[in-house]
């Protein structure tokens, strides 16, 4: 993707983000202020990119799952499982390395479970991931023993509340993960293959793509992102809350992907656009608080956003919107016109 096409792809998200920021700063002019205090950057924008970390991380994995025409409802519960595993591990004195390893492994196993149900048993993604969405919190509570499992580890809580060169660590993690996944799918052929099975699974299999393994890998990727989000959430509050960690974040993550202009019907995807979507959601969350509105408005605004996007993406409406652009294209490309009229 060249710079120009990339810019065109993410322009709606950038404009939306800018509009939201302008709107918020009208009510709260100090929005833009960032100061450097005690070796850390402090300011509303910094707060946004820190608090938006879990949804941003989930959105990365969810983008890939949705690109395959799937959906992963279990990510919130997987966050809880992974956070609980990490906290338990710290609590048992196994150290931070083991905690991170265990959380990551738990996320991958959850993804494997979902992926196998979808790819090998042929169960619809929404149905398959529902199982873990329901049972996952029970499993997390099993690990924490039903309490909020607190721990005391400065190294671990650094992941949630520390800073690197003044930037909050969660921010660093989601940006690095985003770049990592971005490179992984775009510098290899994975992105193309994922888009291909999302558009036409049968034709892709006939072209020699190993669709089943690829599907499983995508769900495992989503599980891994959920593990990172779970670790951050746990580290941030210095405790694993099996009931509330990641509660309803799967919906925010799906929303972020949809705001990012990725179609729920699979195919073309942009991780960057989904990340912008996550930041839009977080700016709205923060902005509503700052502007002095009760946080109750938050959900209503999200609902309105979903409805607007649905209308814009609707297969019944898109043809009318595209009419203008395709007409222009035809004029530009007389060769195609001739071909069509043979």
């Amino acid at each position: 993707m060249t710079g120009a096409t990339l810019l065109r792809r993410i322009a709606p998200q950038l404009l939306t983000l800018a509009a939201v920021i302008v709107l918020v700063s009208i009510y709260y002019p100090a929005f833009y202020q960032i100061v450097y205090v005690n070796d850390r950057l402090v300011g509303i924008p910094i707060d946004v990119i820190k608090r938006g970390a879990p949804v941003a991380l989930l959105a990365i994995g969810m983008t890939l799952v949705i690109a395959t025409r799937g959906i992963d409802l279990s990510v919130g519960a997987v966050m809880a499982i992974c956070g609980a595993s990490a906290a338990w591990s710290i609590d048992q004195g196994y150290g931070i390395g083991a905690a991170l390893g265990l959380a990551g492994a738990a996320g991958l196993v959850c993804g494997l479970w979902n992926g196998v149900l979808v790819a090998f048993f042929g169960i619809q993604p929404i149905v398959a991931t529902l199982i873990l969405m329901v049972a996952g919190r029970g499993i997390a509570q099993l690990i924490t023993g039903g309490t909020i499992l607190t721990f005391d580890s400065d190294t671990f809580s650094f992941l949630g509340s520390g800073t690197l060169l003044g930037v909050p660590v969660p921010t660093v993690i989601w940006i690095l993960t985003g770049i990592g996944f971005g490179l992984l799918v775009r510098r290899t052929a994975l992105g193309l293959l994922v888009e291909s099975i999302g558009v036409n699974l049968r034709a892709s299999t006939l072209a020699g793509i190993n669709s089943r393994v690829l599907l499983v890998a995508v769900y495992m990727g989503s599980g891994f992102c959920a593990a990172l989000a779970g670790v951050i959430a746990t580290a941030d509050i210095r405790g694993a809350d099996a009931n509330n960690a990641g509660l309803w974040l799967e919906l925010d993550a799906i929303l972020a992907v949809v705001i990012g202009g990725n179609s729920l019907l699979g195919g073309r995807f942009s991780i960057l656009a989904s990340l912008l979507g996550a930041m839009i959601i977080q700016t709205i969350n923060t902005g509503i608080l700052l502007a002095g509105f009760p946080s109750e408005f938050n959900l209503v605004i999200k609902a309105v956003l979903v409805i607007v996007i649905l209308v814009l993406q609707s297969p019944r409406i898109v043809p009318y919107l595209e009419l203008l652009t395709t007409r222009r294209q035809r004029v530009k490309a007389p060769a195609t016109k001739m071909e069509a009229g043979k």
Partner: protein
Amino acid sequence: MNIRALPLYATIAIFLLAYLVCYLQFPAMLSTRVIGNLLTDNAYLGIVAVGMTVVIISGGIDLSVGSVIAFSGVFIAVLLRETGLHPLAVFALLLAITTLFGAAMGGMIHLLAMPPFIVTLAGMFLARGAGYMLTIDSVPIDHAFYETMQRAYYLMPGKGRLTLLGGTMVASVILGMILLHRTKFGTNVYALGGGEATARLMGVAVGRTTVLIYAFSGLMAGLAGIVFSVYTSAGYPLATVGVELNAIAAVVIGGTLLTGGSGYMFGTLIGVLTMGLIQTYIVFDGTLSSWWTKIVIGALLLMFILLQKGLLRLRLSH
């Protein structure tokens, strides 16, 4: 034998087996008291699951019901506090609102040709947000009529109480059974679940049926909201988070195919009671932790989804 009824038989067998296990361990569980409590405690879930059954058999899903229940409680509590309206008038107003709300979602699903999952997700946010906008606190309901309703019961043999709430649930299930199995609308619901394109070719008014399906789900969610407010004597916008998941689980454990086209209303009742039974068992046991409920429900979900998948293969193979 009717292969589509197999999950229903499985559901009933599992429920009876589970009850037997409970009885062997805690003989006290075999009493109309426990059954009465089971019905009362799960009344709101059962009612909302009736609506969900219709939605799921039509091939859809309704994620908004938990939020609608919470909104209903808040709406009732606030209106009773702020106005002098009789609760019955408030109930009528509320049911009209939630029914219209459901109808609007059904209309969007049909007009925009978008997945029900995402449309009702917007509905979920909207209803929860609307509840928050009325109040963010838990508003107690203190009304003489509420006390009357809470005290109303029918004494079953064995001193078990069939409360008004439990009775409402049973009545809803019966209403749902009639609607689903004895009306043209019900047949159209199954037809939609069997295949929308074919149903349209066979003359089913797809748009109207879709609107009615979600309107009915909205109505049932409103009714569940009323029952829940009577049960808790309060309205709280943060209440019943995740009830839509429990309702979906109850429907699937009740033997309904999550992808639509097959299922029974009676199975949903058994599904709700099975879930209630697991909780009751854990309470009786006293040493088991509550999270086992979720894990067991998850395992049951998996079992029924795989059973349905297996039956589908079986049907396709002959």
